[in-house]
Each structure stands twice: as C-alpha cells, then as structure tokens.
C-alpha cells in the first residue's frame, strides 16, 4: 500500500540558511502522527514546505502524495489533491466575506472533481451545521475571514474549514496554542471527528496536553531541522518530563 503522504530526506533553506536538514516521515491512511519540537526547530517551516509556499528552496529530497511527487505542484493544486494546513497564525483577509471564501474553496474542489458547484442555500446550511459543533456563531460567519477574530476563534475557524473541505491529509500547526481548556476540547473534538481510515493527520504541537485529546499513533521529535526520535504516544509524556534536551541527548 502506498503511503498517503511520504516525506523523503527533505532539505529546505530560506536564503542561504538551511532549516530542514533531511526529514523522513511516512503517513499511512488512518494514522495520526504528532510532531513535537522546541521553538525554532523548523515545524512551521516543514508545514509550509509541504503546502508549497513560496520563499523556500527545496535543496533535496521529495514529498509524495499517494506515491506521486508534488514538488512541482502549486499550493492550490496540492490543496485540491487533498492537503490541508491549519495555520499557526491564520491571516486576516479584510473585506473577504467568510461565506464566499468558504464556498470558493469548496467549489474549487468540486469543479476539479467534475461535480456541480454547491448552491448558496445548501451551502449555508452545511456551514451552519458544522459551525455549530465548533461553537462558531453566525456573527463570526458573517464577518470577513479572520478579521477581528480572537486567537481562539481563528483556530476554531481553521478547523471549520478543515471539516468543510474534508482533506485526506491534514497538517495542524500548533492548533492548540492560545486556546483555553474549553476551546481546546472543542477543537480536539472537531479534529477527532475527522479521523477516518482513509485519512491521515500530522499534528504539530509544542505541548503534550493537546495529545491527551488527540491521541496520536506515532510521535516524532523534530529538533534542528531533523527528526531526532520517533516512538509511540508515550514519547510525548517523556518530553513533558525531561524536556527536549534529554531527548536530543538520547538521539
């Protein structure tokens, strides 16, 4: 069986500074992987490189979705191939209405799949239903994308988009940061609902606490642009106790 997402010896630089220094990861359908690592270890960089953001030079290695390299694909093509990134810092889009944005994203996939575009009324219903589960009210849906949202609201809005787009590969970059206990629960429930045998997730986090809610199948420690250690969910607990320094030594 081919992996849903395979990262092979991935090297990437910004300008002359190498940041990712040979990352290997295989994400099979049905699996949830967690990536932990200290600040500045390259977690966000990895998520951007996977999603195809400009400004990074891939100096080696490959990224494959369903066995096919996606390095030549633009970010929107990768997204339509099933990749979703929940941003660590979701950006504001002033004046861009939430509903029309969400609908454009959903329809982009439908058009590519040769399906009918979803009509406005049906779409509003669909969004409302999912939004309710994530404790997102109508007022937030009416506003421009992320404009005037609190940190927690932005994170919930990311998960709403994930729920609407039903990606096969979800990358969540520190979705837990800035959330209080209640919000963490809501977000985690939202994520857990999307766990499915045909999907995979890469949950990036700085803290172990998220992993109490979203229980991973595998945990990897990223430090200095490399995976230093991989293990089961108990590895996360170990990090909690000894910090990254201990892990790094062990590697």
């Amino acid at each position, binding site marked *: 069986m081919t992996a849903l997402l395979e990262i092979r010896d991935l090297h990437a630089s910004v300008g002359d500074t190498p940041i990712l220094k040979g990352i290997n990861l295989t994400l099979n359908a049905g699996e949830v992987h967690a990536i932990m690592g200290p600040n500045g270890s390259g977690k966000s960089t990895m998520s951007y490189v996977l999603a195809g953001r400009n400004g990074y030079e891939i100096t080696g290695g490959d990224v494959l979705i369903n066995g096919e390299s996606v390095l030549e694909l633009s970010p*929107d093509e990768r997204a339509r191939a099933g990749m979703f990134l929940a941003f660590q810092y979701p950006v504001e889009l002033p004046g*861009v209405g939430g509903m029309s944005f969400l609908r454009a994203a959903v329809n982009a996939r439908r058009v590519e799949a040769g399906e009918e575009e979803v009509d406005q009324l049906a779409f509003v219903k669909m969004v409302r239903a999912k939004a309710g589960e994530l404790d997102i009210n109508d007022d937030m849906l009416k506003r421009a994308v992320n404009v005037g949202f609190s940190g927690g609201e932005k994170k919930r809005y990311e998960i709403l988009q994930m729920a609407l787009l039903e990606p096969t590969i979800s990358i969540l970059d520190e979705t837990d940061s800035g959330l209080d206990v209640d919000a963490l629960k809501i977000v985690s429930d939202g994520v857990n609902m999307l766990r499915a045998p045909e999907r995979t997730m890469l949950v990036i986090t700085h803290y172990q606490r998220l992993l109490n809610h979203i229980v991973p199948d595998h945990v990897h420690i990223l430090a200095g642009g490399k995976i230093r250690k991989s293990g089961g969910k108990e590895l996360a607990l170990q990090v909690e106790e000894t910090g990254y320094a201990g892990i790094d030594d062990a590697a």
Partner: protein
Amino acid sequence: MAATTQTIEQVEQATGKYKYGFVTEIESDKAPKGLNEDTIRFISAKKDEPEWMLEWRLKAYARWLTMTSPDWAKLDIPPIDYQDSYYYAAPKQAEKLASLDEVDPELLATYEKLGIPLNEQKRLANVAVDAVFDSVSVATTFREELSKVGVIFCPISEAIRDYPELVKKYMGSVIPVGDNYFAALNSAVFTDGSFVYIPKGVRCPMELSTYFRINEQNTGQFERTLIIAEDESYVSYLEGCTAPQRDENQLHAAVVELVAMQDAEIKYSTVQNWYPGDENGKGGIYNFVTKRGVCRGARSKISWTQVETGSAITWKYPSCVLQGEESVGEFYSVALTNNYQQADTGTKMIHIGAGSRSTIISKGISAGKSQNCYRGLVQMQPTAENARNFTQCDSLLVGDRCGAHTVPYIVSRNPSAKIEHEATTSRISEDQLFYCLQRGIEEEAAVSLIVNGFCKEVMKELPMEFAVEAQKLIGISLEGSVG
C-alpha cells in the same frame, strides 16, 4: 435579429474577455464628420431644440475654441483630431415612439444582450432605465409609474422641449460652460442623456438608471445628465456604459450636474465599463468626464460611488460643492486598471457651509502595465466652520510593471475645520495569497477575492442590483494580470 446574434457570437469567440465588445448592425443617421458651427446647428435641429439652446451651444463652442486640453493629469493622451469624428449618430427608426413595441428589435436585442432587458416582461422589477444608444435615448422605462408621484425621468433632449424653465435654470449652473475644455466641448455638442426631477418631499420609488452604449464607429458620445432633487426628496441613480471592441480610440466626454436642495439626498452610482482597449493598448474609449454636484440646501447630501474598470484613459473627478450647512458629500471609488489602461481619477470636496462633512474612500488597483492615479482636492473655505473631512486612499499593485500614484491637495482656510488624510500603497500580501491558495482556490480567483475584499468598503455602497455584477467585473478585468 439573426445578424445581430451572429455578430455577438462571433465577437465573443474572437475576444473572450470583454463581453460587451460586439457591434449592433443597424442603419444610422449621422451628422457630417467634423466639428464646426454647422455640426452644432445640425444636432440642435435634429433635437428640435428651441433657439435659446442653440445659442447656448454656440457660445460654448466659441469658448471651447479658446481653450486648451488639460495637461496636469498623470496621463499620456495622444493628440485627438476633433475633426476626424462624428458628433451625432442615431439609429434610424420611427420618429417618435409611442411605446416600446415600436423600438427596433435590433436595439432591444442589444440591450438584452447587455443584461438590460427593456421590454415589459423582462425588465428589472425595481429599476427604471433610460437607454441611450450613441447620440439618442432609444427608450425609457417606467415613465408613467414615475410620473404618478411627480418624478420626471426622461431624455434630456425631451426635457429641453418640455421643461425649458427647469433646464434653463439649472443646466450649466453647477458646471459652467467654460469650466474646462471637455465640459465646454460637451456643452457645445451634447446629444442625449437623462433628466431627473424629484419634487419636494418625494422619495423616488425605484432606482433610476441610464445605460450608455456607444455603437457607431468614429463617433464620440457626449451625454449630459441633470438631476434636481427638491427639498426633502431622495433619489438613487445609476449609470452603466459599454462600447464595442475597436482598434481606434473613441471619445466620451460627458457632463453630469446634480443639485440637492434642503434635506435632499442624491445617490449617484457608476459602473464604468467602456471598452478598455486590448492587451497591447490598442483601441479603447477616452473617458473625459466632468461630474459635479452642489449641495445647495442645509443637510443635503450627495454621494458618488464609482466602479471604474473600463476605458483606455479615464479623466474624471466627481465632486461636491458643499454649500448648505451640515451638508454631506461622499466619494467612494474603485478604479482598476490593467494592460495599458491609464486612469487619473478622484474628487473635489469644496466645503463652504458650516458643519459640512465629507468622506472620501478611494481604492486603486493597478495591474499589467497600467498607470492609476488618485487625485483629489479637499478645500475648507473660511466659512466652513467646524467642517470635517476624512480621506482614505489605498492603492494595490498587482505586478511590477504598473504604477500607482496618489496626489491629494489639501487646502484649509478655517481653523475649526478638520481634515484627515491617509494613504497607503502596497502589493497583495503574499500571506493572504498563500492562505487562499492553501484552501485550493486558484491564483486568479484568489487575487480576485482579495481585491474584492480590498474594495469592499466601496462596493457595499452600490445598489444591490449592481453589486454582484460589479464584483464579477473586477474579477474579469484582472484576468491575465496574474502569473
């Protein structure tokens, strides 16, 4: 009919982007080529005008001859041969139309194709339309309904005959004949346009709109619009414009005058989509327009909203003279230029009345190799006690071969008056673009989304019926600017 449809389809296939670029095959009646007193007499005679109107035109012409084309705008305007153009062209049809049934079906088909169906069954429910085709108004809908509440909405050529006192009193009172080169030219040769009169206390029950269409080759369009809103009245008026796709440049020099009396409000919206020329800068309309409103009475209000995506060159500054105490002027503008388009547009807010207020929101988008300039004047006269102005001008650059310019003029002669002006220029944020792309939205659509978001403050001022169209127009006008 069949011929028209065929032409439309052919042109569409050949051109793609500018979907209004077709030509209607219709026989027309033209004035001899060139500009001189005889041309003016010809136009005046065609319109069956009274003698005083002809004299007014001739005076304007004499004045025009002494003037020179303005050169202060950031525009590169090729010399215009005013003798190499027709100043009057009208479809040949029955002299006087008793009803829409008599309008040439070719024309009805044309307007339908433009999205402005005129006949009873299909016309927009709550919008009265005056359809101006080259130099004449070919149809005006809902006239009876409007006249029941005392609203006059008719071609200006008719108003000159039927309401001479009103026309004499107001025409040229806001924009004097010699105001500028193009206004003088218009005053001499104007052909048609709309006349609106809203009596005291009346809220006009529907949107009024004029749809301008240039069809003939080598023909200029010189329309003139006059809107008078008496005390405590309200009207919302919208104009739209398109023209065929041609290699030559055509001149459009309009004059629009608005008068708002005490407590009256005029909302004037424009979706300007004249043919912009092709991607090499060939062809397109020269859009040289003088628009000005005067808030005569206390608490009167004039609001200009414009979405400018068309024309090869735009020279246009819809302005407000705020005479009345506590009168209000507004200018909301989106100007989008692509390829080789040039736009120099903005407004003037002249504060005379105490407590007068004005707001200017301008969003300029430059793409391709275009040049886009905001130019605006805010003037506080010594009498403008406690007057206020707020101006926000934002420019967005799409691509690195275009220009975005901001030239505000601020003049204050009253210490209690307050002016605040802010302007920014930047390009589309990479972060915003990546966010949209990551959601699977294609780059061109993502840019269109972001640009529409950038314009939102202005777009929300458009009447609902036109907002969606305008939004699409922005997307279409940006085509080819990305990547």
